[in-house]
Structures are given as C-alpha cells and as structure tokens.
C-alpha cells in the first residue's frame, strides 16, 4: 500500500500541538536554516524545482506563482488559505488541528521565500477548535522567537496574523478571501489585476493553500530532488487525499501523486460488501464524475483533466450502486447556488434556476422539457463567470445526467392515465 507519512507523520501518534514535541522531531530546523543560511531566492528555488503545485484546487505551480511578484519595494503579503470548504475536502482541517506547527513553519518559509514581513492565515469560521489550536501554536512560536522581530538575530522581521472567516465557501476563492480579510464583502474581484500585482490592501500578495505551504518544510529538509522524484511527469510529490463516500474507512490518506484511482478506493477500505462501483468524484464538489473505465488512471492533475475531471483539492468521493444521482446532483447544485456570492448573472440566476428544477426532480415532478433545460442552462453558464464557483455547477450534473439518464427520466411526472 502506498500510504506515506510526510505531512501526516506523527499524527495520531504524538502530540504535535506541543512545540516541544514538534521541535524534538526536527521542527523549525528548516525555518532556522532558511533565515540564517538561505536567501529568499534560494527558498523560491526549492519551491520551483520541486515541482510543487498548489493544493488548493487549481494546481498552479507554486514557484511560478511566487515569481510573478513584481520587483518593487511595496510591502508584500503571504496569505495562507485555510478556508477549506470544498465539499468532500477535509485535509487542511486535519493539518491545522493536529500539526499546527508544521502549518506555521510552512507559512513562515513561504513568507520568507517571497520576501514578506507580514503573513496572514484565513481560517474557516467553523474551525473554532483549529483556530484555538493554531493561535496557541503561534503564541508558543512567538515566545520561542520564531515569529516577530529580529528572528534568530538575523534582523529579519515577520509577523503572522490569524483571521477567522464567517463560514462562506466563496471566501476560499483567493480574491474574495482578500476582500473578506480587508473587512469587505466576501466577493471575488475582477481580474486583472491579479493578487501578485495588487492583492491585499492593493499590495503584491501570494495566496497559498495550507497543504501547499506545509510541503515546503519536507522539501527544504529533503531537497527538491526528493519531492520531484515522486509522482508523474508534471504532477510531483505527495498529496493528502480526503477519501469519502461509499468506502469502508473514509479518511485522509497521504499518497504519492499518481497512485491509481482503484488503489485509492482500496486504501480507504474498498466498497462495502456486495456493492458495486458506480462513480467517483475525484476533485471535490466542483469536479465531474469519472467511471469504471477510469479506475486505472493515475491520480494526478493531467490524467484527471484528460478524463474530463480534475484532481482539485484532493477530495475523492466514491459512489456505489445505492446512489441516487438525482439527489446527489440536487445536493451539489443547491450547495453552489447557496454559496454563490450573487455578483454574476450566470452563476446567481443559473444556479438558482437549476436548483429549483432539480428540487422538483427529487420530488418526482420533473418535466420532459427540463431535461434539455438542465443541460442547456448548465452548459451555457459555464465559462461566463467572474470566478470558478460559477463554473463548478455544471461538471457533476452533466457527468451524471449523461451517464445515468434513466435516473433522471425516472423522476419525471408520471402521466396519469384515465380509464
């Protein structure tokens, strides 16, 4: 079994919330090395050459993202995105609560790598416990002199601010997150300008996912070659996959990128006895389902894209033959319609309309004309929105309507026949 322990090392075995325990296992050694011995450019080189790609969903190469920062003398900010609300994703939550110092060390390395003196972490509102635990970890690190002024006597200052969201999925989208962090309505911004040019308070900003930043620590420790040696051609390293749905042992599993889909299902205990596989949604609520014919594909960015889906944030939801896909589609569309910030016409009105129609289907009151409408509206609203949320409504719906049309037809109003 290819389960590995990199970020998850020690979780469930020792109390990594304790700074002493974390340090006894080599914690903050990379931070001290970076500040004492490495230039920011050298840290960026690690990020770049390791092939690390964003674990927040879009999979953008991390080193490349950092290099977009303009070379001006404006203050620049690193923002750690811990708003984790993608349906099916629960890895950042775990990292935050069980290995908060690793998360913090990753943030510190990221901030140093982009030459920032102020980092922020935006924590989803519902993560009350995680917020408490991380804040304690931060205080302990500050007391130890790892955060604040003149770190390790190097003259380098770095402040970290913790911000709690109020529980809106859209605030995970990086520009909505920045608005929210500034105290404004959490709605995505029109791009350009991109955050690298004008982000938080109009300053150059990098937004990175918790997991992305956390991987910086082992990459610095083991070298970029170590990370780049694992995975497939363009998808490198390891990934924490949140496996859920119709498996026997749902949970977070850290695996090499490129582990076959079939194997992931097995890692999580496989299907329940007597059930057959129907589909898996491999990249969170925003992704399309893949089916039997895709079971042997490696789980990486490219293969999932080729199969018409995505790896996204690594939320892997398995569906067996007990699944009511109409209900599942309704549930997801309702989620997106509910979480839409409502700025864009297609996302706001389209999401709502699709939800209303699917709700009727769930109650067996679908109309034959609705079948066309569902396809037409969901596909035309895609690609026309300001942010990716609006484009997340179609993939699952479309994939299951096409694959399981009989489930939808079965929900049409029964024509009553009078004798």
């Amino acid at each position, binding site marked *: 079994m290819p389960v590995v322990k990199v970020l998850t090392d020690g979780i469930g075995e020792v109390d990594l919330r304790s700074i002493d325990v974390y340090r006894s296992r080599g914690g903050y050694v990379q931070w001290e090395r970076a500040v004492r011995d490495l230039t920011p450019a050298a840290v960026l080189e690690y990020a770049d050459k390791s092939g690390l790609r964003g674990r927040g969903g879009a999979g953008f190469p991390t080193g490349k993202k950092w290099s977009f920062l303009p070379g001006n003398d404006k203050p620049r900010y690193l923002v750690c995105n811990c708003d984790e609300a993608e349906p099916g994703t629960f890895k950042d939550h775990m990292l935050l609560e069980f290995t908060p110092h690793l998360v913090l060390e990753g943030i510190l390395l990221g901030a140093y790598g982009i030459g920032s003196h102020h980092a922020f972490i935006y924590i989803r509102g519902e993560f009350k416990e995680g917020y408490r635990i991380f804040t304690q970890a931060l205080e302990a690190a500050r007391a130890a002199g790892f955060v604040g002024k003149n770190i390790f006597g190097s003259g380098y200052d770095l402040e970290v601010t913790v911000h709690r969201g109020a529980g*809106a999925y*859209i605030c995970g989208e990086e520009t909505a997150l920045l608005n929210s962090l500034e105290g404004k*309505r959490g*709605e995505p911004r*029109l791009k350009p300008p991109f955050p690298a040019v004008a982000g938080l308070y109009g300053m150059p900003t990098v937004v990175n996912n918790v997991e992305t930043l956390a991987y910086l620590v082992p990459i610095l420790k083991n070298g970029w070659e170590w990370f780049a040696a694992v995975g497939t051609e363009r998808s490198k390293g390891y990934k924490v996959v949140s496996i859920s749905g119709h498996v026997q042992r749902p949970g977070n599993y850290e695996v090499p990128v490129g582990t076959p889909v079939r194997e992931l299902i097995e890692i999580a205990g496989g299907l329940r006895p007597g059930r057959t596989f129907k589909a898996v949604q491999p990249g969170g609520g925003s992704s399309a389902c893949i089916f039997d014919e895709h079971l042997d594909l490696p789980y990486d960015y490219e293969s999932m894209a080729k199969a018409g889906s995505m790896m996204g944030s690594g939320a892997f939801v398995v569906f067996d033959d007990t699944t009511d896909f109409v209900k599942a589609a309704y549930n997801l569309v309702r989620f997106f*319609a*509910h*979480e*839409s*910030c*409502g*700025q*864009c*016409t*297609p996302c*706001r*009105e*389209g*999401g*709502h*309309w699709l939800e*209303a*129609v699917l709700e*009727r289907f769930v109650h067996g009151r679908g*109309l034959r*004309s*609705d079948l*066309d*409408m569902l396809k*037409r*509206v969901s596909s*035309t*609203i895609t*690609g*026309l*929105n*300001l942010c990716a949320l609006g484009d997340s409504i179609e993939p699952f719906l479309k994939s299951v309507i096409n694959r399981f049309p009989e489930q939808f037809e079965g929900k049409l109003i029964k024509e009553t026949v009078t004798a």
Partner: protein
Amino acid sequence: MADNAAELVSLTIDGVPLKVPKGTLLVEAAKQIKQEIPVYCYHTKLGPAGLCRVCLVEIEGTPKLQIACNTPVADGMVVRTQNAKVDAGRAMILELLLVNHPLDCPVCDKGGECDLQDYAMAYARGTSDLADPKTSKPKGVDLGPTIVLDEERCVVCQRCVRFDDIIVGDPQLVLKDRGVRDMIATASGDPYRHNFTGNVTELCPVGALTSKTYRFKSRPWDLDRTQTTCTQCSVGCQMFSDVRFGVPLRTMSVEHDDAISDGWLCDRGRYNIGFYDAKERITQPLYKRGDTFMQISWDDAFALWARAITDAIHLSGPQSVGTIGGGRLTNEEAYVAQYLFRALGVNNLDWRAGRQRQATPGSRGGTLADLERANAIVVLGDSPADRAPVLDLRIRKAVKRANATLVRVAPLDVSPVPSIDVVDVAQAAAALPATASSIAVVWDGIDAAAVERLLDALPENVTVRTYITSEQGNARGAETMGMHPRFAPGFAAAENGLDTEAMLAAASDGALAVLSIFGANPALRHPNGPLVRAALAKTPFVVVSELFMTESAKLATLVLPAKGAFEKNGTTLNATGDALPVNASLQAPEGVLSDLEMLVGLAEQLGVNLPAQEAVHAAVIEAIAQAPAFDLGDHAFRTRAAQAATIPADGLRVAVHSNVFAGDGTSAHDERIVALRPLAEALLSTDDAKVYGVSSGDRIDLEAGGLTLHNLSVAVRAGIARGTLVLVDGLATAPANSFAPGAVVRVVHVRKGDSTLVEA
C-alpha cells in the same frame, strides 16, 4: 501614460478596421464604429465590474465568448459583436436575468427608458423554459429621504454600490446576503443619505432605484425636455428639465457634460424643483401699509418704486439710494440692474448679501479639469461639499484616483476622502507635499486676509489655480456684470459707491431712502442679522424681488413676485467662469415677472432708456471676456469693517457652516424635499460639551448682548475647535446671524434629552 495614449493599436470589429489607443476597452472601442455593445454593470464613469455578462463578444482565437467591458484591445484582434454565437450568449444572459425579474413594467417608473426592456427586445429569445415560481423580495423599500428601492427589479450590477464608493467616497450602499437572495441596502441599516443620492436612480439600469419625487408620475415619452443650467449653486451643472403639463417632474443629468458636472447632479439641484407651484408662492406685488401687506397691481408697484427713487435722488442725492443683489439673477439681469441704477447716478451697488466678499478668482482661476489634475488641493473656509457639491466630487476624484493631497484649514465637517486637516493657513502650507507642482486653492470667498496669507505662504515655482465657491449660483456673473461698488462691467473702474456693509450702516443711521434688493436675503444670510434688521426698519422704502416671503421680504415695503430660473432665459457665469445658458422650461404663474421685466418696467417709469436685447447680450459677452488682474483676497473686495475673531474666554464664538439644503426660499417651500432640510443644530466640541454639561440631542438656548436664540439641538462633534459653536447658515427657524458678528455667546438654558430644564 502619455506614451501609451499615443500608442495606437489596430483591430477589427465586425469587419471594420480601426485604430484606438492602447489600453482602450473593447466596449469603448466599439463606440468608435458606432457599434453599441449592451452593458449593465459597466459604466464609463465607474469602469468595468465584469458582473452582468451581457456585453459578450466573440474574439477570434478564443473559444469562449469574452466580456467586452473588461477586455482591452490588442493588436490584430478580430472581434465580432454580432453573430449567432454572440446572440445566443446574450440571449442566455437575458433569459437568466428574467428568471426572477417581476412583470412590473406596467407600473414601473423606468418603463420606456429601461435597459432591461430595451435589451430584452433586442437580444432575448422571447420565450423561456421557466416553469418555477419567481423569488419574491421586498418592494417599495424606503431607502432614505430620496429613494425607493424595489429589490425584485435589481439586476445586481452594483453601479449604485460602486457610485457610493468610487465617486462619492461614502460607501453607504452595499450588496447584502448572497446568491439569488442578495439585496441592496445601506451597510448600517440607516437611511441612505448624502448630497448625491439621486444619481443612483440614473445609474440604475432598471427600475430598482427610483426617486420618490418622480414615483408614478409620468412616462418618459410624455415629458417635454429642456436642457438648462442648474442655478442652485455656483458649479453650474448642465441638466435636463423634464416637464409634463406645465409641472416640472424631474431633472436629469447631462451625461456628456464632462467639463462641468462630470455627468452628476447633487440632490439640491436635482430635487429642489417642487417649489414652482407651491401655494406660498407670491404671485402679485405686495405693498406694506402699516403692518400688513396689500396686493397691488404691477403698474402701481412700478409707479411707487419709481417715485420713491426719484424723490430720494431729488431730496438727498443718488447716495441715498442703494441696490443689493445679483447672485440669483441672470447675467443679463445683473447687467441691466447696474446699468439702470448707474444711469440714475446711483453707485451704491453690491451683489453681496451674505458672508461672501469675492466671487471671481481672478488671474489664476482654473477649470474643473485643472482641479481634478492638481497634485494638492487646499480648502480654505466653508466646505465645498455643501457650497458647491459637484465641484467637491472633483476634489474627491483627484484625491481618490490621482492621489492628490487634500489639505483643509479648520474644517467644520468630516471629509469622505483622506485629508490633512490643519488649524491655520501656516500649517496648511507646511502640510503640502514638497513634490506638488500644481496646487489648487478652493476658497469660500469670505476671509480675504486669510486667503492672502495662504497665497503668500505657498511655495514659488508651482502652478497655483484658484477657485471660489459662492453662496449664490451667479455671484461671479453679478460681480462681472458690475453689481459691485468699485467695478463696472468687466471689472472696469467705477465711480465708488457704498458696499453692502456701508449701505447697511448708512441705512441704520437713516441715510438711505430706498433700498432695492434683487433675489437676495440679507436678513437671514448677512453675518450681522441685527444690523440688517435695524437697517431695513430704518429705510423708508425697501423693495424685495422674491418668490417667497423670506425674512428679508417680510421687512420690505414692496415685495415683487419674481420668476425662478426654470421660468426665464438668459445666461449665468459659474464658479470657473463658464458662461452657461439658462433656458426656460416652465411658464411662470400669472402675475409673476422676471427681474429683467421688473427692471424694464421701472426704467420706463423713470424714463431711462435701456439698451436693446442684442446690446445687452454683447455687453455681457464682452464683460465676461475681460481677464481680471486681481487675485484671491484682493483689497477691492474687502469690507471696510472687517472684524478680527478672537477665542472668547467666557463663552462661545459662532462659526457658520453652509448646508446645501438650507435657505428660506426655494428649499423651504418644496414639500418634496422637506426631509432633506437640515435641523436647527448647534455643533459643539467634545470639550465644550463637557464644560456645559450637554450631550447630543439636548436642547439649548443661547444669549448674547440681549439677543437670544432658542431651542437648538446639540450635536457634539470631534474636530470642532474649543470655544466654537457651529450653526447652519440660512435657517429661518434658527438664524445663524441672530447675534452681531464677534459676539460672545452664552448658553443660558439646557433641556436634557429627558426634558428636564437646567439653568446654565
């Protein structure tokens, strides 16, 4: 920037090749070939937002349709604004917008000029697969004193939200909640209120935001439209007056009036049009016998007036006759007024009836575009936000968009944009950034000594542009036309007469026999109310031309019913020296004459030949063409009795603050804007509030030199200097000029919020 502007990019739109400056957005580029791309959220003045997605176009080489509002042109770009794919995309957007849009057209004020109606006709499919009920949301929401909101009609373009943020700098409106439940509201939940709210009704592409004053009143095609100049203040915004059946139903901005209004109107200019048919309007000359006015004919009025003047000149010489006013007249009227009186040998002429001394910025006057481009702006005196609201929007634009430094000397209000607030002129000069190469000085025309000190303190080798915000719309025109004791038209030297101060002093000594006041209200607006009242009481024959029985009219011997600006033709000269047309859109009530018609009637009786209309016109143009040689604070404008203000030891000194809705004329007799009128408030510093044991909401009585002012509501404000009590100018219920200037005022009674009375 300049380089970019010069750099041209070639592209093709709908097969037509064109070249436009680099950086131009497709939506603007398409206008060059007269191809309109539909937009909801985009607005030239607000920029792109990328929300509505109706502006879809096809760009060759890009598979998905793109939004034209946020796509800059690129060399070799091939764009289609019309083809099957684009049409289908737009049709989809419209179908989506209509999913939850109510079928309100028959009862919606926007009907006939609604972008949703228009685009639905032009681009929508005409049918829909919609089989579910529409969402319901609040309708007829009372957003504030001016605006009603229908949440169901909102297409969430956020133009209103962005207007408050980008243009006004006072982001009151926000989008609340999310998804299909989102709604426009004020962030605080308080009424939507600032000086520019009405603009959102024009920006709103649908009937979501409508003016209370225009609700259910008309269809656009039933309105007669006239373009004219707003004369409510000295900015001179261009506006449309929309009239139906002789009633002014609304005013609208002129979108392309970039030079002056920048496409906006303030709420005073927009909404204060309901007084024309007010029942309190004077429609017949009134002559005072004893304590009561009686209605007389115009013939009698002219005869009485002419006889009073002839007798006075005969008995005591022309120096016993005086004329005040002009700032509310047209240039032509002001010119004829001074012509007529000077022809009689009368040199006691002054347009100044209030606090202001000077209206013409002189040799260094600038345009509004210059103001917008200044690196630094110094505001000295009363707030332009209330004296010249739309000019203030230029200041905000300079600060917000071009990072100009705003320095305000002893301001009495809070700036919506970042400002450096200083206590005196010396500090103002010190606060200017050393790099500023162009400085704009915006002055209220009141304290000549202070502005002179400011100009002296400004660095050399910088471009200085000067602006004066006036108390009356055509103050500069009146001054230019020679309604001034030292200037003939075009600032030519005139035989010296008495200025307003001296006329009032002479009058209270019994030395004036006739005082004619045109469109002015010194009894309420002149800083020395007691002196005005004494002077008018002592003068045997006081004539006031007015629309309403103002404080001054009540003290007159003869009150002449005058036309308002929508009822007459002429020109006006705004704060920046632009000669602007005033075009009549209304018929005046029977019996009401314009000031010009009154002057003509008087001249006939006096046997003075007035120049013909064309000659007046030419003289006006010539006077405006003269370049004045003076600067701000010039001695020619100073009063002979200037008083220095000191900080009182045992009381409070009154400072006066303009409010755009104050006055006891047109704004006091317009039931549509009652809710916008300022309260009779006394603003106090936090320190003084402690000294007097008062808090906001308490009521106080004031006393000085035996004069009293009762029942002012206290408002405690940070930023007000200790020892200063701020009163709103121009409220008949609580005249700010109740006491002699410089009087030390005492708080005599305090009524706490719970009505207990405390003797101070």
